[in-house]
């Protein structure tokens, strides 16, 4: 369909994604979208592109000899998938870098074919001591497999730049 680009842009309503700092409530539980089934190719690719050389992550017979039913999914892939599932709800809209992760525990192994889901509790939000236009939000995030067993948990903090977040909420400069 032929359309004038200026007309198209003028007629479109920007649909923002992500939350602002003021939209978090300490103590709330957030159930994150999507979930993700981890495939064998996911973990093999991740393990080799990160040079994670332990045969548990890429030699099925070795993993079986150590008591596992299959190769073990690289724990850092498990972390990154769970963090990825939290991004839209937690950090995407607040416009600031990922400051740190603390107290991360891998509770049990994940195997190819397992399906992971994520949830988080907002633990803390506070204004930056150095800059009143910035704040820090901290969440406790947990990842679960298809049996409801917790596979990992961690705490994560992100900075929020309030002005940048507001610009993004209003559609940026496109």
């Amino acid at each position, binding site marked *: 369909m032929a359309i004038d680009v200026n007309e198209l842009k003028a007629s479109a309503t920007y649909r923002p994604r992500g939350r602002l700092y003021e939209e978090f409530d300490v103590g709330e539980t957030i159930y994150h979208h999507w979930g993700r089934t981890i495939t064998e190719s996911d973990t093999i690719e991740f393990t080799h592109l*990160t040079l994670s*050389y332990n045969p548990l992550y890429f030699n099925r017979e070795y993993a079986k000899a150590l008591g596992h039913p299959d190769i073990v999914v690289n724990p850092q892939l498990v972390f990154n998938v769970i963090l990825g599932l939290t991004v839209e709800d937690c950090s995407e809209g607040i416009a600031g870098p990922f400051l740190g992760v603390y107290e991360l525990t891998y509770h049990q192994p994940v195997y190819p074919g397992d399906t992971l889901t994520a949830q988080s509790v907002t633990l803390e939000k506070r204004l930056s001591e150095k800059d009143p236009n910035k704040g820090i939000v901290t969440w406790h995030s947990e990842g679960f497999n298809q049996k409801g067993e917790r596979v990992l948990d*961690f705490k994560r903090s992100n900075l929020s730049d309030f002005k940048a977040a507001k610009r993004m909420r209003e559609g940026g400069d496109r």
Partner: protein
Amino acid sequence: MSKLANLTSSDTYFEDFEVGQTIRHARGKTITNLENVNFTNMVMNTAQGHFNEHMMSKTPLGSVISYGGVNFSIVLGLASQDTIENALAEIGLDQIRLAFPVVHGDTLFAYSRVLEKRDADREDAGIVVFQHWGLNQDDKLVAELQRTALIKRRSHWADK
């Protein structure tokens, strides 16, 4: 299959680590689209600062910023063969700090120090806590973190 002990190094058992021992790992790795954009998208991290060059070209950084989870996973990877090749399990991570932005074309290098060794609740393995640091090509500290792993004891595994 070959004997298990033939598949991993003979000098990375629990007994081989000494508290305070500090290792400069042999390999570096350059961050490209294959690491940052690939894994950011594969794990459904929706933050477009990691994959929208047009948007990021207008920021002070001037280009997409590599996702911190990928950066520290590569630092851990670069350290893996020398630290957890003989691990039975990775137990956890802590004190993960992303100290400096990483952009495509930066090359990361890893250093590790043994912080702590202790017995585990099984005889055939012990627990080691490593501190890891990632530097870029200009020796800027880009990431630091600790990893705790359950590592085979030579006494139980060297002839398996």
